[in-house]
């Protein structure tokens, strides 16, 4: 075997089960960079591009959950009807690479690569999304916060295929903000997703590119929940919003590298958290 091009999920799972060391290929926007720069020399490849089931999405009739197949591309996520169903994921999708990258790259690939700077990942974290994995033994569903274990590391086993990701929309504000050196074609220096759940009375915040995994700022979330009734954000004033940003910043754990410094990244997530909370306050009023 070298490359298998299955048309069904069962065929893909079977091929991957036979060759657990095979590379899983979908949009190619991560794997081919590695191959072009001789960091990876693929011997066996299982391509998921022809599996129609992975390209589909739907809203579950009974649970109202949004279920997005792993093969749904950024270019689908940034456009209607998905844009209105998931504004934060659409905002994140719009910041991924270029139109050419977004026409190829998939949400499943973002999860498969599992980079701390992956644009979709803070959104899935703040949405409390669940990742659906399948192999020959069956299916398991892992909350995103247990899925990612380190930079480019996850609990996905080698013979498992990421099938879909699903979450319950809150009906409240959700937004994504990202810092890079320019507006187009950048990898995040720091990113934040903020989701308001008006029914549960909570604000959920996830940070990208400021730690080995996506970081949920749970201490800051709890601090804010103790200060005010988050079913209604109009009671939040400017001072509280600024302090919230400072508390989010305290939960970052970034490194200095070629893309930015630890201190700038920490500053950045604090500013973005305040900015997103201010947007959420305006939407509510």
């Amino acid at each position, binding site marked *: 075997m070298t490359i298998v091009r299955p048309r069904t999920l069962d065929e893909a799972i079977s091929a991957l089960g036979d060759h657990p060391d095979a590379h899983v290929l979908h949009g190619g926007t991560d794997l081919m*960079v590695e191959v*072009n720069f001789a960091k990876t*020399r*693929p011997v066996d490849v299982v391509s998921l591009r022809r599996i129609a089931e992975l390209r589909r999405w739907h809203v579950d009739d009974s649970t109202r959950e949004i279920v997005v197949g792993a093969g749904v591309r950024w270019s689908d996520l940034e456009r209607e009807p998905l844009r209105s169903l998931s504004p934060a994921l659409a905002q994140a999708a719009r910041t991924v690479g270029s*139109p050419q990258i977004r026409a190829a790259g998939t949400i499943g690939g973002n999860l498969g690569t599992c980079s701390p700077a992956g644009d979709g990942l803070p959104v899935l974290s703040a949405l409390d999304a669940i990742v659906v994995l399948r192999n020959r033994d069956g299916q398991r569903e892992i909350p995103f916060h247990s899925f990612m274990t380190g930079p480019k590391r996850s609990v996905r086993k080698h013979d498992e295929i990421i099938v879909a990701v699903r979450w319950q929309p809150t009906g409240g504000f959700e937004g994504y903000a990202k810092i890079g050196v320019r507006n187009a074609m950048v990898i995040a220096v720091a990113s934040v997703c903020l989701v308001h759940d008006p029914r549960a009375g909570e604000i959920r915040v996830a940070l990208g590119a400021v730690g080995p995994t996506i970081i949920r700022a749970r201490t800051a979330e709890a601090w804010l929940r103790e200060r005010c009734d988050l079913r209604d954000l109009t009671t939040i004033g400017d001072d509280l919003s600024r302090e919230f940003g400072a508390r989010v910043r305290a939960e970052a754990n970034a490194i200095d590298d070629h893309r930015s410094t630890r201190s700038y990244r920490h500053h950045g997530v604090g500013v973005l958290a305040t900015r997103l909370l201010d947007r959420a306050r305006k939407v509510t009023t």
Partner: protein
Amino acid sequence: MSGEPEFYDLRVNGATHAVSDAWLGESLLYVLRERLGLPGTKGACEQGECGSCTVLIDGDAVCACLVMAADAVDANVTTVEGLSAPTTLTDVQASFLAAGGVQCGFCTPGLVVAVHHLLDTNPNPSENEIREAISGNICRCTGYGRIFEAVRTAREERVAVRARGQK
């Protein structure tokens, strides 16, 4: 080279091309240029940053450097060579020449493919939509002003052609 040699067919610009003895990791960019004799698609960054290798795959504009060629079987690939008959110019190519949107020319084929994709999917794009559509194509010569001018010209000519067709 690791692994077994690959043998597969690619459908490029309407014709079927046999690829033999290829390495699995070869990109579509490499196969187009080095195996199929189609050098119009340019290669520079090989990581999807520059857009000079933009081709159409089943109607989507993508970077050929990020497509595994062996995975592009049963897809319809269109390169810049496939946009018009040899020695003739497309409307977009003509407007690039007229506006002075070509200097060193290295980015031009990728831009031409991206602009065709834009005007074929969005016949009357706004300024922002034009900028967004070619945001993945880097040009180091022109400063983009004349490229934007060329896209506007091609847009207006197509709008005029459609208006004449409706009369």
